[in-house]
């Protein structure tokens, strides 16, 4: 066992660092490092740069466009990108629907969708939750009724992130309600510009528009757009959920957050000295830093194939809970350090179209917005209560 990188791995790290330094657009990294808002067009630009280099999907098998890297190389790559201020690419495409398509899709579906996912031309969103089906996702009611070679879809999806910017949706629909709720679900792919689809924005507590409710009225989707077997969608959906949770530790992003907090504390006065030197602050930031170490090394253990001793298979559940709790701890600490300058609403310039610089000091930009939106982290992707249920069931063999 050896924690240090081999000479080859160090060389790889250097190669990635140099390439990212030369190719990541500065305006994008400045936004990411400074707490600014990364837009779809920023993300697309970076996506295409990575695609052209062949580094857009390291997690995918080589035959579908992956890089063939070892787990350590993938880790180094992700670390270097985060360190440099690269934004996280669109998970719905690369982490979620892509793997479902290359694992369960037909050859036609692979040929149709994988190129657009890889080159970033096609933007995806996820149709899972419904107003009555959140934690109890399998109770979903959006109906797909067979009509010759097509399904006719009626119903609604909610919390659909980026539906207003998406070209395609992967969507869970009910094709049978006669048996167990998990057994009548199918997994469909369809474009968002079909007749009968309406996207209605949901404004979240930070004043942002990123999630939506999507309404389907007699939307006609060919059966050829179904992944795998009819009524087997729950299997594919669960496969995808595990992938969703795998990425959720976001150790790199947390390191970035930690260093932003430290930078702000190092320039904030308190009691005639610096906040960074105050014992109460130091205890909190140290606690967070140690929690982050534990998260990082747990992730590395799981990446290297180790399982939980007591509840094998629930590694992703554990990581989701630990990571989102830490994320919220960090964001609380951030607004605490920001003091009174956590109070101004920093979205107001978007609303008023004001050109004046924000009153919030640079180091505290976005802290409150992150804090507010970050409350969703313990809710989405399976609430932390549900994650604990899953772990407990395995732990207690019930």
């Amino acid at each position, binding site marked *: 066992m050896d924690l240090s990188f081999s000479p080859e791995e160090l060389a790889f790290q250097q190669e990635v660092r140099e390439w990212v330094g030369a190719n990541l657009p500065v305006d994008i990294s400045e936004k990411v490092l400074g707490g600014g808002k990364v837009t779809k067009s920023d993300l697309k630009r970076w996506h295409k740069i990575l695609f052209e280099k062949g580094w857009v999907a390291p997690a995918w098998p080589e035959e579908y466009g992956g890089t063939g890297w070892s787990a350590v190389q993938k880790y180094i790559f992700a670390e270097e990108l985060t360190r440099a201020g690269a934004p996280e690419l669109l998970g719905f495409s690369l982490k979620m629907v892509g793997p479902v398509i290359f694992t369960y899709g037909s050859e036609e579906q692979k040929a149709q969708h994988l190129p657009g996912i890889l080159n970033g031309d096609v933007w995806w969103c996820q149709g899972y939750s419904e107003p009555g*089906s959140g934690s109890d996702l399998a109770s979903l009611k959006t109906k797909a009724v067979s009509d010759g070679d097509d399904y006719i879809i009626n119903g609604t999806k909610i919390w659909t992130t980026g539906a207003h910017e998406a070209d395609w949706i992967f969507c869970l629909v009910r094709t049978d309600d006669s048996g167990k709720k998990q057994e009548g679900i199918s997994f469909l792919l369809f474009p968002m510009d079909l007749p009968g689809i309406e996207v209605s924005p949901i404004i979240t507590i930070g004043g942002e528009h990123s999630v939506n409710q999507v309404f389907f009225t007699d939307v006609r989707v060919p059966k050829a757009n179904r992944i795998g077997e009819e009524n087997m969608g729950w299997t594919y959906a669960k496969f995808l959920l595990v992938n969703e949770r795998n990425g959720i530790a976001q150790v790199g992003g947390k390191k970035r957050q930690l260093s932003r907090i430290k930078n702000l504390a190092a320039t904030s006065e308190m*009691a005639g000295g610096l906040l960074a030197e105050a014992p109460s602050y130091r205890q909190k930031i140290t606690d967070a830093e140690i929690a982050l170490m534990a998260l990082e090394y747990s992730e590395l253990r799981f990446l290297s194939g180790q399982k939980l001793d007591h509840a094998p298979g629930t590694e992703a559940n554990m990581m989701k809970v630990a990571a989102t709790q830490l994320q919220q701890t960090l964001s609380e600490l951030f607004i605490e350090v920001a*003091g*009174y300058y*956590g109070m101004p609403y920093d979205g*107001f310039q978007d609303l008023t179209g004001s050109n004046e610089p924000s009153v919030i000091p640079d180091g505290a930009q976005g802290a409150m917005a992150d804090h507010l*939106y970050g*409350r969703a982290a313990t809710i989405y992707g399976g*609430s932390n209560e549900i994650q604990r249920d899953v772990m407990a069931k395995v732990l207690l063999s019930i």
Partner: protein
Amino acid sequence: MDLSFSEEQQLLRDSAERFVDQNCGTEYLRGLRDTEDGFSRDHWKTMAELGWLALPFAEDNGGLDGTPVDTLVLMEAFGRGLVVEPYLPTVILGGGVLQAAGSAAQIESMVEPIIEGNLLLAVGYAEPQARFDLFDVATTAAKDGDGYVLNGHKAVVIHGATADKIIISARTSGNRRDKDGISLFIVDSDASGLDKRPYPTVDGSRAAEIMLDNVKVGADALIGTEGQGLAPLEKAVDHAIAALCAEAVGAMKVLLDTTVEYTKTREQFGQPISRFQVLRHRMADMMMEYEQAKSMALVAALKVDSDDAEERRKAISGAKVQIGKSGKFVGQQAVQLHGGMGMTDELSVGHYFKRLTMIDVLFGNVDHHLKQFSAAA
């Protein structure tokens, strides 16, 4: 000992809750978003008519001689309805400074207009470098003939842009962090050299950065004794903290009630989610936090005028710590238990959560008041 509310206080509670339930809440707050003032002048007029603006002022000054417990009753109702009218800056803080140190002439010229709803005040007590220390004052007031000339930057002045007059703490002598040498001045908001940069705050209220560039004021602008402004400012801020704690209690109650109601009607896995033990325990914890906050808000109101400095400090800072912790738990868990709905601008939950988040910051967060409490012992 008697901790029951008087009949008058019950009546005040009833009338305040009726007003708030009929006129305030999330819809009202949303309606104020695109307005310039960020609050309702009609509400302000009604508050004047109901006598609320007169509540804490002495009878001799035309007020109702209300106690801090009367203020608590009113502020709890304000918390229940997310009231953003400038009651705290005008009546509690500004009025508090005037009552603590104002001259007879200042009181006579300003208290009546406040009570009638014709004069709005703001208090510039914070500065960008000062964090939560009221005595950390870099703004200067230099002698200029009979009067003074003010220079400096006052940060996050609540309702600073709509105030007719702004009370400014400025240094007339000493070093930036000396407790002596701070003086309070009342400055017209349209004074030459005073620049306001207004913005909304996260909770839907308003604040402004106030820049003072050679603002000239007369000798009659000085409130109290030159160089001795910290004590009256601290006194007014302590009253404001007590009031804010009561507001937080009102907000927490709404969150607890709403969450209990929601979990009884929201069904998942074929049953109301209130049947799940993990959520039941969470709500029992929310209730405990709420009740302890309520107890501490009462202590703050009962002891804010105590002559015993240690007793007053412990009551005020202790309450602010409890409110900060309870408000965080109740606010965050209310969002969590509402699931995605709790994250929306549409539901009230998020608005109360944001207000509680702001209340923790105002006048010093948990950390700050832990230190104040511990230093007082």
